[in-house]
């Protein structure tokens, strides 16, 4: 088990930053994209809402689906969102959900093979949220403070917030790691933003459809368990792929010259 080779070079190796290149990338690529998104998010939310409304009208014929508008970031304009009627769950439906959730929760927390594993801890927490939701709707359904339109409004605002945050975060990450090729950095940066746009739009459509069909009972679970958490997951996926490529490059014959020591 003794190591035959001491990897001395990895101990203190490091990269040399090119601050000029780092800031040029941020100023010429990231900043303009950020400004464009700030200037056009109103329009983007309108297009997204119109497409979502069109598909929902096909899936839910006879339901009144309109486009609503609300304020967002001062000076940059408001957002548009899909407005549609929702429904409260019946008592029987709520109790059935409660019993199924409790059964699954007990399963995940008591079966030896499942309990304690990260995925099942995550699922158990999601179930706990759903159980709280069931109890709320079983005891005081009329006092639930949100309509589907409120949720829709919040979703769009959160999604745009996410796009803005990802743009800044990814911009800095790909900007600072300027030893990677420009193409790799731009592909990663654009890849996350495009994926986020597609994923966020499809999820918006699916959530609205499910909440309309299944009632507001599912709103808290969607919001807390399948919301930003999943956006972060694909951000890390893209980032991992990017770093994987960079590591491969740095450990190639040519890439080794990139390293500095001490």
């Amino acid at each position, binding site marked *: 088990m003794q190591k035959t080779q001491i990897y001395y070079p990895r101990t203190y190796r*490091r990269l040399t930053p090119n601050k000029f290149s780092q800031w040029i990338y941020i100023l010429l690529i990231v900043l303009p994209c950020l400004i464009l998104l700030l200037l056009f998010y109103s329009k983007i939310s309108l297009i997204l809402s119109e497409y979502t409304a069109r598909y929902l009208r096909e899936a839910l014929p006879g339901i009144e689906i309109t486009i609503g508008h609300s304020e967002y970031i001062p000076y940059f304009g408001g957002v548009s969102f899909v407005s549609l009627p929702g429904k409260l769950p019946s008592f029987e439906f709520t109790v059935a959900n409660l019993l199924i959730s409790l059964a699954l929760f007990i399963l995940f927390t008591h079966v030896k093979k499942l309990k304690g594993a990260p995925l099942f801890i995550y699922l158990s927490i999601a179930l706990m949220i759903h159980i709280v939701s069931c109890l709320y709707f079983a005891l005081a359904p009329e006092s639930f403070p949100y309509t589907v339109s409120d949720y829709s409004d*919040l979703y769009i605002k959160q999604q745009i917030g996410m796009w803005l*945050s990802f743009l800044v975060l990814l911009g800095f990450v790909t900007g600072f790691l300027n030893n990677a090729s420009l193409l790799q950095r731009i592909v990663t940066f654009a890849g996350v933003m495009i994926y986020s746009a597609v994923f966020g739009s499809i999820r918006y459509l699916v959530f609205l459809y499910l909440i309309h069909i299944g009632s507001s009972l599912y709103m808290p679970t969607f919001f*807390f368990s399948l919301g930003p958490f999943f956006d*972060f997951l694909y951000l890390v996926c893209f980032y991992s792929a990017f770093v*994987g490529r960079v590591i491969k490059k740095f450990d190639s014959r040519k890439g080794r010259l990139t390293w500095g020591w001490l």
Partner: protein
Amino acid sequence: MGMALIIMKGYFVAVIIIILIYTARHAAFAYNRMFGKQRMYYNDIYDSSMPSVSVLIPMHNEEKVLNYVLDSLLECNYDRDLLEIIPINDNSDDNTGKMLDEYHSKYPFIRPLHRGKGNNGKPASLNDAMELARGDIIIVFDADYRPGKGLLHSLALAFKDPEVGAVMGRVIPLNINTNILTRLLNLERSGGYQADQQARYNMRTIPQYGGTVGGFNKEFFMETGGFNPRILAEDTELTYRIYTNGLKMVYANNAESYEEAPETWNVRGRQVRRWSRGHNNVMFRYFFKVLFSRKMTLREKLDGLLLLCVYMVPFLFALAFWDTIALFFLGEMNIFIGWWTLIFVAAYNTYGNFAPFYEIATALMMDGIQGDVMLLPLLTFNFYFYIWYTTLGFLDAVLDIITPRKVHWDKTERFTQKNRGAAE
């Protein structure tokens, strides 16, 4: 109700600020490790008068692994006239004692200490062994570790510097390819040592003594009262004792030793819970000592306080999570909260567990680990796992402080022989 809402919102915002501070701290570490000037350990120094060393190895039912650590130490190139090895047989009921006596008969400088029933656990064991130890420097290994040939020399060298109170080497899992958990733990270890510890050493904040693959000055240790058997994280306690007494810790990134990482989630969960309990216990005892210390620099104090609270943050987080759910049902999930929820999620994912994903990625880049970097997204799920067990550990620590209950050492299960048996 209005006041309750203000408190709930205030708490939520406070937690966000705390998390953002930690995120910034780890981003600074990642940047420093990637681009900053690296502070070298005491490499390439030769000294003809090395200090005498006592290697202590606490063992409780370690028959599965003890031969690996002892055989590895026998291979070490440290002058045997200056070396003694004290394996501590802490109330074992397997063959540990017998096997140690066999080693002693072959190698007299391996001097086992057999402890019976009584005050068991690592801190109490180390205290007893310290009475027996003749070396100026104490180096501690856990029983599942495999030190490299030059490790003892490398660690002992640091004590030629009179300012050094303790030294810490780098821990690398040996059983990386066993399953997903061991591969993930390898990523965490890489992030924790290659990036986090080295950056803290570079930035002259507080590299942490990890309780194994490290050593400390015996005289200083005995003068300051030995280990407290009520504290499970004797390593963290020693780190803070060193700094509050005006000495320094050094981190030796090139002094690598190999450990057996837990192979089941259950074992890992119990380990994390024990770490959290011990670390939080130290936090309760040292928070104000660090804050008002006259021997620590401002930078050391700042990082020291953040490091002290690192196992409390997941508990604060868990509370904030339920706080947001309550706010949601109270109709307060307006855009303000919506925005903060986003930052909350992003921040807790970046803070994550022991090192956030970008810090781990930095370490993997430095280590040149290509394939497993694709496992990084799985750490997001680990976050819930760590929240759960760290919170339990925090609650244990609170109970330890407010009740006179005894602290019991929960040994980490070993897998080596089990795997070998399965393979055969």
